[in-house]
């Protein structure tokens, strides 16, 4: 597999990371090296092997459907870049 500059820009956009042409060129060469390493996996015959998604084969616990958290929004919002009336502010989305 070989990546193109457009691939890198598309991946960056999917990742929500701004990238300019010069930076994309550098990233392209690094990612190509990394994918060269990853490609070694393709030669392995894994037919019939069950994927292992987790180190411990345990199922998720269930808990009672009750409120366990107290309202600490003021404390949590202290670190937010922009807050007004208990709401997080972002640039206008709907005109």
């Amino acid at each position: 597999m070989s990546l193109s500059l457009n691939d890198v820009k598309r991946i960056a956009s999917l990742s929500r990371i701004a990238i300019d042409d010069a930076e994309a060129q550098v990233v392209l060469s690094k990612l190509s090296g990394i994918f060269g390493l990853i490609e070694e996996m393709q030669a392995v015959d894994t037919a019939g092997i069950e994927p292992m998604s987790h180190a411990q084969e345990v199922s998720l616990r269930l808990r009672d459907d009750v409120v366990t958290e107290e309202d600490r929004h003021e404390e949590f919002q202290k670190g937010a870049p922009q807050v007004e009336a208990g709401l997080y502010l972002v640039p206008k989305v709907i005109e």
Partner: protein
Amino acid sequence: MLNKNLKELSGMLAGREISSVELTQEFLGRIEALNPEINAFITVDKDISLKQAQEADRRIAQGNAGPMTGIPVAQKDIFCAKGWRTTCGSKMLSNFVSPYDAHVIERFDQAGAVNIGKTNMDEFAMGSSNETSFFGAVKNPWDRRAVPGGSSGGSAAAIAARMAPVATGTDTGGSIRQPAALCGISGIKPTYGVVSRYGMIAFASSLDQGGPMGKSAQDLSIMLNVMAGFDSRDSTSLDRPVEDYSRSLDESVAGLRIGIPKQYFGEGLDPEVEKVVQDAISQYEKLGAKIVEVSLPNTRLSIPAYYVIAPAEASSNLSRYDGVRYGFRAQEYADLVDMYEKSRAQGFGAEVKRRIMVGTYVLSHGYYDAYYIQAQKIRRLIARDFTESFAKCDVIMGPTSPSTAFDLGEKGDDPVQMYLSDIYTIAVNLAGLPGMSIPAGFASNGRPVGLQIVGNYFSEAKMLNVAHQYQKNTDWHLRMPSI
């Protein structure tokens, strides 16, 4: 004082030979003197530390002390600690003051330990050299031209330079064991699920595991007694009976079956590292252990499998950094998407961005089966290799790292070379097994060499016993760099 183990320090505190405030001041002074050069700590807060020490002294006076009461502990800056800046080594969180405590922090608070500061680390724990930290590289106390390893390099360097008696670390692909090896200290990554991940900033959730770092296996056992245990707030925390990890330290290793995987002694291993590791294994034979050959044929594949799985999980975990709820937000932007993209482009460093992009790609439509699922199948093959090996042996031993600490800047520009240095540690995380590293000697360049001990699931007490017996018969773990 600086070279004393936890039992000795605890005894001195109990016998009123020293107060926790004095002990804390001693280490704070050491940090003040050495940190400008070593850069092991990102944040030090004397007021908080000394307040905790006063509280510990009260507890000791009341006769309420436990084995860690009044002991200074350096906390990796990946653990959220209420009122402390918690950065994870990133510009993204450079002004984040945590409103809550991680489970590990709570446990140390309950034990009466003193938080002596937050240690430097690779950004979001992504690195093997500590060079990706937004707060600058950490220097190896044994040789300041060398890296301390990563990602828990600040914790390892802090212990090696005796700026803290013990520290916490986290290990996703070797981040406790490799810096422990490169800095000549001890560290253990427990079985996945033993230490709660609550409040431990997520990198790759199916691999991340917190654990203790210190001078000796005995110190690690005391630390692990505090850190381990069920926590309902981590959905993968295991509900198991409470263990005393010190219980079998003094057992003999006569008859112990040590598995030696031939794949850990092949091409790419520095001959001097090999010699030190072989000498350590010979020491175990003298103590009555038996050597068994085992095979881990898929070792080489652990690197590509890991560098698909870990970035995939990271790309998902790090999507939370959007410049809205907390963390860094870019100054100028045109609209919402532009704000996300610029905040993330400016807030993350190059390695973190690369891993997010690799992860995004391998999870994207059309590539998911070829990369992500294939990596998970290989993960199963790797776990099976260990299961088969542990049918024949009690522990597996080998080198922790293929070389001693490399020079600062040596691999910084080549991610693939950096990734290859994780060859002996990664498979353990993929399988979810416990692994540790203990100091076993030095190479001719004066840099430390670590012996890796891998155990079967939940065999931490056994591994600590095996390490302790070695440390009773050697003094590598007591060596200090001359600073």
